[in-house]
């Protein structure tokens, strides 16, 4: 099934089995969401639980906080992750802080789904990858599922978690067809904060998340035919970050390449590299580390410009070869 349908299945399961769950967001009802992810849910569960909101991102995130601390399990959507910028206060100043600030007397079990990323020709204000902003904030959790299976499983885990969790879904992944083991219970099928090795290898470790996992795997295939064996680690969760899995991989391979669509500066890649060199894994490095990231410019519209801005399979492949030659 498609990645989008996998999210839809998880949402339906949650709505069906837990009456505290409700959805809110722009055009998630009869329109089915800008990317069809919530298709059909309003027909099944009604407008009281699948709530079309006015165009009011701050209120969408804020109502989730208020509902969450009073006994509901809100799953709200930013129609494009870019619009979360209008909702920073409820997320960063409120949701992230309340549990700690109120001395542990309150829990904020809310989930925000954020379709993000470029490649759709939607240009600078509809294509960003803003996950690192939130991974910076103590009190928030951030996941970025790369597969249709994880789209379901990490969402279920996010809802089961008593903390605010942001789920970044890359828009280009929605149409990916993969086989998915459909869950029948809302119990978290996976832990939040565990990376997985998507492909084992011995010459270098490629760390990726979200859409770059697929590209990293494709690059690994190509590298294989050049006699290079790449291991691909899918972070899955960006906060908490499973740095141990990365370190263990680097100890085996001796080389590290991190890739994400967001620009490099102050990004997840920098955090991963720091986490590696802060440990004894540093001693295993046979080459400098490399980052393959989005260009440091707003996302352009024109196809050729957009493509040049987003890291491609060949960019990962080339950087990996350079590491091997270093």
């Amino acid at each position, binding site marked *: 099934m498609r990645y989008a349908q996998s999210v839809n299945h998880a949402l339906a399961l949650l709505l069906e089995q837990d009456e505290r769950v409700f959805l809110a967001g*722009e*055009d998630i*009802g*009869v*329109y*089915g969401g*800008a990317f069809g992810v919530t298709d059909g849910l309003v027909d099944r569960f009604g407008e009281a639980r699948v709530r*079309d*909101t*006015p*165009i*009011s*991102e*701050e209120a969408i995130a804020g109502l989730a906080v208020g509902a969450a601390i009073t006994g509901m399990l809100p799953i709200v959507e930013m129609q494009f992750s*870019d*619009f979360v910028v*209008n909702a920073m206060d409820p997320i960063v100043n409120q949701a992230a802080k309340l549990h700690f600030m109120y001395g542990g007397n309150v829990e904020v079990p809310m989930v925000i789904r954020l379709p993000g990323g470029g490649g*759709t*020709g*939607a*240009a*600078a*204000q*509809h294509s960003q990858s803003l996950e690192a902003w939130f991974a910076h904030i103590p009190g928030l959790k951030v996941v970025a599922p790369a597969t249709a299976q994880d789209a379901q499983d990490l969402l279920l885990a996010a809802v089961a978690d008593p903390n605010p969790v942001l789920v970044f879904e890359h828009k280009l992944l929605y149409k990916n067809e993969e086989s998915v083991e459909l869950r029948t219970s809302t119990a978290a099928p996976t832990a939040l904060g565990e990376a997985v090795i998507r492909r084992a290898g011995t010459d270098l470790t490629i760390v990726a998340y979200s859409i770059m996992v697929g590209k990293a795997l494709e690059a690994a295939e190509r590298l294989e035919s050049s006699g290079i064996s790449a291991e691909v680690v899918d972070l899955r969760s960006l906060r908490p970050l499973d740095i141990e899995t990365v370190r263990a991989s680097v100890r085996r391979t001796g080389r590290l390449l991190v890739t994400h669509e967001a620009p490099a500066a102050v990004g997840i890649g920098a955090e991963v590299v720091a986490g590696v060199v802060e440990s004894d894994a540093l001693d295993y490095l046979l080459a400098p580390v490399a980052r393959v990231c989005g*260009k*440091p*410019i*707003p996302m*352009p*519209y*024109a*196809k*050729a*410009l*957009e*493509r*040049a*801005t987003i890291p491609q399979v060949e960019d990962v492949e080339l950087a990996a070869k350079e590491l091997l030659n270093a």
Partner: protein
Amino acid sequence: MLEIRYFEEALEELFSRGLLHGTMHLSIGQEAVAEGVCAALDDGDYITSTHRGHGHTLAHGADPTAMMAELMMKDTGYCRGRGGSMHIADVANGNLGANGIVAGSMTIATGAALTQQMQGTGKVVACFFGDGAANEGAFHESLNLAAVWDLPVLFICENNQYGMSMSQDRSTAGGSVAARSAAYGMPGTRVDGNDVEAVYEATHEAIVATRRGDGPALIECVTYRYRGHSKSDRNLYRTQDEIEDWRTHRDPIERFAGKLVAERGVAQSNIDAARETARSKIRDAVQAAVKAPDADPADLTGAAYA
């Protein structure tokens, strides 16, 4: 209005031929708002636009060839292929830009009006926004600030009755956007946005007052969007009958053309000639844009900074 209509129709055609990228928001059916407002502006007055901005941009005097070139990913486009449909700006000509963020231009328009006030230019800023935008915090913050500081800005609500799939009655408390102006102590009027003369008159009147130093005003223009919100819209939230009703009975171009012939003694042949002139202008724009050089990735380095 004709140029806007034909421009948008040309885009539909180009899009279906795969010559454009991404999506776009067409203003077919809403031409009278852009035209009526911009006709009331003087040289040197500013506009800010929205994601549905082709009409505003053309009405404010932009070059259709450079707009086409932008949409066709050309280096000669207004934004060198970097902005696309949602971000066309013609800054040299006082168009401070279309905006992909709903209500995103409202605070910017307020700031541009502050410049006019501080520099005593006598110019005004017309800020286009949709009915859906009136539910963003930026709408309320902008109206309040503009009102307490008496800024020369006209808030032009292009009320096409839907914000994507949300009808105004499902999204907007209080019945109308114009009514909200009262809360901020500024004049607010609601006009037939498919009557280009009514839009012009209301704008003209508001501009006179604003230029005089009376502060901001809000004009809500009621209109209708014929096409889907964007290219991915299945129109599930409204009926085909509703769309047809607006198209056949209230089309802003047909109404104005009909009025010119019936009441103003304009010959039908003049109307036909105007159509042909507009058509060929857009046709020429497409042809010129097709031949222009593509936007070049080599120019991107360092492009984020001045």
